[in-house]
Every structure is written in C-alpha cells, then in structure tokens.
C-alpha cells in the first residue's frame, strides 16, 4: 500500500500508470454514459406529474453528487501535498478544482432550467440549492486563488490550505443552511427530493452517476497528464514518449 502511494509520487511511473488506466476507463465510461443516457432519455417512462421535463435529472443529479465528492478528492490531495510534500498531489488538486467547479455549475444551471417548468421560477433559496451554491463558491475561491499566484508551486500549497479549511467548513455549512431554511419555513415551494423514485427511473440514474464518476476521474487524470508533460517537457521520459528520442 505504502509503496503504491510512494510510486504514485513518481511522475514517470504515474504517467505510465494513468496512461493504462485511461486506456481502460475511457471506453467503459463512454459505454456506460451512452447506455445510461439512452435508457434515461428515451426508454424510461415519463413522470406522471412533470412529464418529460424531469429527464434532466439524468444530468442534474449525477453532476450534483459527483461535485460534492470532487471537493473531498481535492481536499484529500491538498492534505497529502501539505503533509507528505508529494508533488503529484499538487498536480491532482490543481486538476480537480476546475472540473469540480464546472460540475457544480452544471448542477446549478440544470437545476435552474428544471426549476422554470416545475416551480415557475429559475431560482429559490431552498436549503439544498443554497448549499450547492456555496459549494460552487468554495470551488471558485480555490480556482481564483490558484490563478492569482505567480509561483505555481506556492499556488498549489495555498490552495491546499484553503481547501482543507473548506472541508472543515462543509459539514457546518450544510447543517447551518438546513437549520436556517427550516427555521424560516418559507412559502409554498418545496423540494420533492424525498419522494420515492420508481425503479425504472432509478437504474438509468445510477448508471449516469457511475458514468459521471468515471468522467470526473478521466478528466482529472488527463488534466494531470497534460500538466506532467508540460512540467517535464525537458526530461527524457517525456521526450521518449513524444517520440523525440
């Protein structure tokens, strides 16, 4: 186990390893994505209340679920980079932040698009939506901080600190937003998140969630590989890989 982590820290080894992973993960993810999308968008029955507009959950829900997990992945990488000073963790964190931000953005935008037909409004200050928005802000903060640093090695460390502070805060934010919402008991509109979902709709959703996890891993890994190639453009293993030597 330890030696595996140690090996992960070595750029050439990781480059080869991730190359193999991508080779397998890419076709599998695309297959799952297609099956899930086909099933969800065309095969699954329409909702008895919302008609076909509900089908947006096949993007909305996976994006929301994976974006939350993405933050923890990022923070974990940050912790590793701060504690063990493994450069690969820096690169992983840098790669994960924008992907997570985009996923969160997708969840927000699809949610808003969905809200228009269901609630008649683009936006409400529901507890879950509000937490999601704040998660989006946390991501944007990390991305903005990274961009602002001139020294990218220092930038990664700074983002590691920020995302760790954010991780400590996420449960608190979620809890506090929940309490805030239940205290104010606002008007009519309510999230129907609790309503049971039919199995014929659930399976494609699970497939789509799996596919989104795969996509997240893929994009992050490819991001990291691009970064590695750029960073080590002078070294022999990159030049060999590129066919220059």
């Amino acid at each position, binding site marked *: 186990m330890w030696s595996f982590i140690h090996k992960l820290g070595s750029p050439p080894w990781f480059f080869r390893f991730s190359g193999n992973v991508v080779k397998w993960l890419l076709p599998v993810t695309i297959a799952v994505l297609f099956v899930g999308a086909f099933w969800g968008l065309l095969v699954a029955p329409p909702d008895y209340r919302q008609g076909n507009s509900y089908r947006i959950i096949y993007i909305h829900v996976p994006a929301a679920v994976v974006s939350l997990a993405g933050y923890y992945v990022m923070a974990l990488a940050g912790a590793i980079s701060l504690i063990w000073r493994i450069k690969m963790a820096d690169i992983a964190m840098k790669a994960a932040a924008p992907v997570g931000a985009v996923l969160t953005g997708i969840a927000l935008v699809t949610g808003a698009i969905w809200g228009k037909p269901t609630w008649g409004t683009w936006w409400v200050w529901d507890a879950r939506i509000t937490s999601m928005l704040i998660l989006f802000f946390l991501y944007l903060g990390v991305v903005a901080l990274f961009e602002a640093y*001139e*020294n990218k*090695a*220092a930038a990664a*460390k700074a983002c590691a600190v920020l995302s760790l502070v954010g991780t400590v805060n996420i449960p608190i934010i979620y809890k506090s937003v929940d309490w805030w919402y239940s205290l104010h008991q606002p008007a009519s509109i309510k999230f129907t998140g609790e309503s049971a979902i039919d199995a014929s709709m659930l399976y494609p959703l699970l497939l789509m969630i799996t596919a989104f996890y795969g996509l997240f891993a893929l994009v992050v890994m490819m991001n990291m590989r691009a970064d590695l190639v750029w960073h080590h453009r002078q070294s022999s293993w990159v030049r060999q890989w590129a066919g220059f030597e």
Partner: protein
Amino acid sequence: MSLLDAKDVAIERGDRSLLRGISLSVEAGELWQLIGPNGVGKSSLIRALAGLARLGVDGDICRSAAALYIGHSSALKRALTPVDNLRCHPACDVTVGDEQIAQALQSVSLAGYESVPVGALSAGQQRRVALARLLLSDARLWFLDEPFTALDAMGCEWLEQQIAEHIQLGGAVLFTSHQQSRFGAQQHNLDLSLYVSA
C-alpha cells in the same frame, strides 16, 4: 562545529533553474561575501540559506544557530517611531530594554529622532533604524542582503565595524554587496557566477 552547512544546494525560481552545486560551511568567526552580477541569484541564495525560501530550493541546508536576516525591506512600521519599532521587533531579543534601544539609536546616529515616525525619515535613516537591530539581537548568524545600500560614508564605516566586531566575538556573517572584497583578505568570497546552471 559549523554554524551553517549547505550541501549541493540548487536554486530554481519560477521555471528557471538558477544555481546548482553550491556547498559551503560557515564556521564561527567567518565572514562570507556572495559575489556576482545583477540577477545571478545572490538574494535568492541568501534567503534560501536563512531558511526564508523553501519552494524551489534543493539540497541540504542545516543551520545550527539563531539567524538575523536583513534584506531589502526594512521590516519597519512607518507609523511607529524608531523606539517603538525596535522595542516590538520580532527579530530583537524579547528582553531588550529601553536603555539598550536608546543606545542603539545613538550608535546609528539617530539620537534626536526617537519620536519621529519612521515614515518621515530619509532612505538612509530608515536603513539605519533597520540596522540598529544588529545591536539588539543575540543571533550568531547574520544574513545581510546589500546592507550598505543608502548609507553614507560614515554609515558604511559604522557597519563595517559592527561586522568586524561580531566576527571577533565568535559570530558569522554572510552578506552581499556590489563592491568587491569590502573586508580584504579577512573575508571568504563565494562567486556565484561559477555555479550558474546550464
């Protein structure tokens, strides 16, 4: 035993590798001047040796004595007077008393400016306040980055004397300056142009 030991240090800034293969060991009573043209990496090296920069610094740096670093920025609060600045300065000994501070200011010929805010002093006077810390710290290892800047002839003489005394008392000094061999044969020179990478 040496106060500072550096083995095979390499320095990188931004994406460029600057220096490599620098090894030095500073003993008590030694005086080292870092030499080299503009941009060769003197400031970067002295910060790395003092322990202020860590990213982009490779190799083993082992410091076994308290350090005093005086760089380009003076670490003075413009709104505070010289006395307050020195009394509350993180680099000064915690036990420094008001009398010692008054003496130190006297020594840098700033008697009479005790209650003027540092922001209203001239460039050279501000530098003198910063250098007064040399008298108030008990660090054995001094890192001075271009300490002679902005000082007039008398000020330079004063500083040379302080450095010489510190060395005699068993301290050690690393400094940079564009004037070659300020202390003649007494000093060791480290010419960084010899270590420029590639």
